[in-house]
């Protein structure tokens, strides 16, 4: 009888107005937090579009400073992504398949640029490849100078963007069942044929999304570039650097460049989603 009464009290508590109210309030709180956070992310991006008229946007697109930055950024980011893919794919494949002394160290070193502040990367590159740098002084003897040229822009981008591709590529290679490679070997495929016809095609969607992320990181690179390559229009002034420069005088140009980068960013997210879901 006691237990019956206890249960009744509990029922009352559970269905009573007092307990229902906090639960509703909790939902409300979570929704409010979510909304606030989404607003915090989207409002600044939306502001870019609200602060400029379509006419002003189109007019800025014809400005040489905008056009130079846009073409330089696209070219350098494409070249640096190609370099990352060319060197990163074999490295990722070897590290995914072979165990050798020092593999853990190599893995850590390839990841290093992710955590390294870009300013540190910039001064480090300058100390290595600058005119009086550790390597640069010898190159200078041959009349080759890298710092403050378009090559420096590309090197800075490769440096900061490579881990994004290499990590993704290694994970994709590790996800492949080894039996496909073993079967290919027994069918007469040399190690190179196995890599080109079995491993890389099976890892394809991971490799493509890794390359897209690496491209996006290269496109946004600012800190290392401005320190190692400088800020010369048409040669080293990429879009982020041009935004920084023009916002001090021609705000419309800065906003237009920013809008282009926003559009590219959305395209990158969409591309990665499509590639990884459909498994192209």
């Amino acid at each position: 009888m006691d237990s019956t009464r206890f249960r009744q009290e509990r029922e009352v508590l559970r269905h009573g107005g007092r307990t229902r109210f906090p639960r509703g309030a909790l939902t409300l709180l979570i929704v409010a937090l979510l909304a606030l956070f989404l607003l915090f992310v989207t409002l600044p991006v939306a502001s870019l579009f609200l602060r400029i008229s379509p006419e002003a946007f189109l007019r800025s697109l014809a400005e040489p400073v905008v056009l130079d930055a846009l073409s330089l950024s696209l070219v350098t980011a494409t070249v640096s992504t190609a370099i990352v893919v060319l060197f990163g794919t074999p490295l990722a494949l070897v590290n995914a398949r072979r165990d050798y002394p020092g593999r853990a160290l190599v893995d850590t070193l390839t990841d290093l640029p992710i955590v390294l502040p870009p300013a540190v990367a910039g001064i480090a590159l300058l100390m290595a490849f600058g005119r009086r740098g550790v390597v640069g002084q010898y190159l200078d003897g041959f009349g080759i100078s890298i710092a403050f040229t378009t090559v420096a822009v590309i090197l800075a981008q490769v440096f900061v963007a490579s881990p994004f591709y290499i990590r993704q590529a290694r994970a994709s290679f590790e996800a492949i069942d080894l039996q496909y490679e073993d079967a290919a070997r027994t069918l007469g495929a040399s190690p190179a044929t196995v890599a080109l016809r079995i491993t890389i095609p099976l890892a394809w969607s991971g490799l493509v999304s890794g390359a897209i992320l690496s491209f996006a990181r290269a496109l946004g690179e600012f800190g290392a570039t401005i320190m190692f390559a400088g800020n010369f229009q048409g040669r080293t002034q990429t879009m982020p650097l041009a935004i920084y420069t023009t916002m001090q005088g021609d705000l419309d140009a800065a906003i237009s460049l920013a809008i282009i980068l926003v559009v590219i960013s959305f395209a990158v997210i969409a591309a990665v989603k499509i590639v990884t879901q459909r498994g192209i």
Partner: protein
Amino acid sequence: MLSVRAVRGLRDFVLDVTLSVRCGETLVLIGENGAGKSTVLNLISGILTPDEGEITLGERTLFSDGSGIDVPAESRNVGHLFQSYALFPHMTVSENVAFGLQCRKVPRPEAALSVAKQLAAMHLADLANVNVGRLSGGQRQRVALARALVLEPELLLLDEPLAAVDMRAQGAMRRELRDRIRNAGIPCIVVTHNLRDALELADRLCLVEEGRVVADGTPEEVLGMRENGFIASFAGR
């Protein structure tokens, strides 16, 4: 004729097997999971390397630690069927079957002809352009066998060839498989957990325990060893 003497340290024990298979003969390996049966196949096909020993196939030495010979897997010309068949998922049926011929640089028209013949012999002609992801277990088994046989291998290794084929189709598939092996006229080693496989495919039966061949004889002889715990449960089923 295949003769194998291979030693290799595994995690729990040292695998040490000696066996030989004549042309046209089918040797069936039985034993507990983890006894090293699949490892024996991997050592013969070159996916794994023995620590010591000698493997010869006909006139060719595939591996010999004494004379430092280790023919790489891709040059052994051994047909190896994996338990899950390992069909390349990004290729169609005919691309899978053509893969080995392309690796051998067989001219395109000639390769296409061989593939077409092999697919027809395996009743796969209608499925030539189907992606392998859409095949049933029995169809996958036939594609895997076609992919190996089109290369006219000098040795056939089959790891649980019927495990992924559904029960009702197994009887017919087993008879078909037996005919294919007989027609090929080459040494064949089959690993199985299935008593019917052992009875219908085996000319000789070997029991493998902890990396060693503990019994070797006709199916009747080996399955008659009821004092062995594994045989008792295997033949008793």
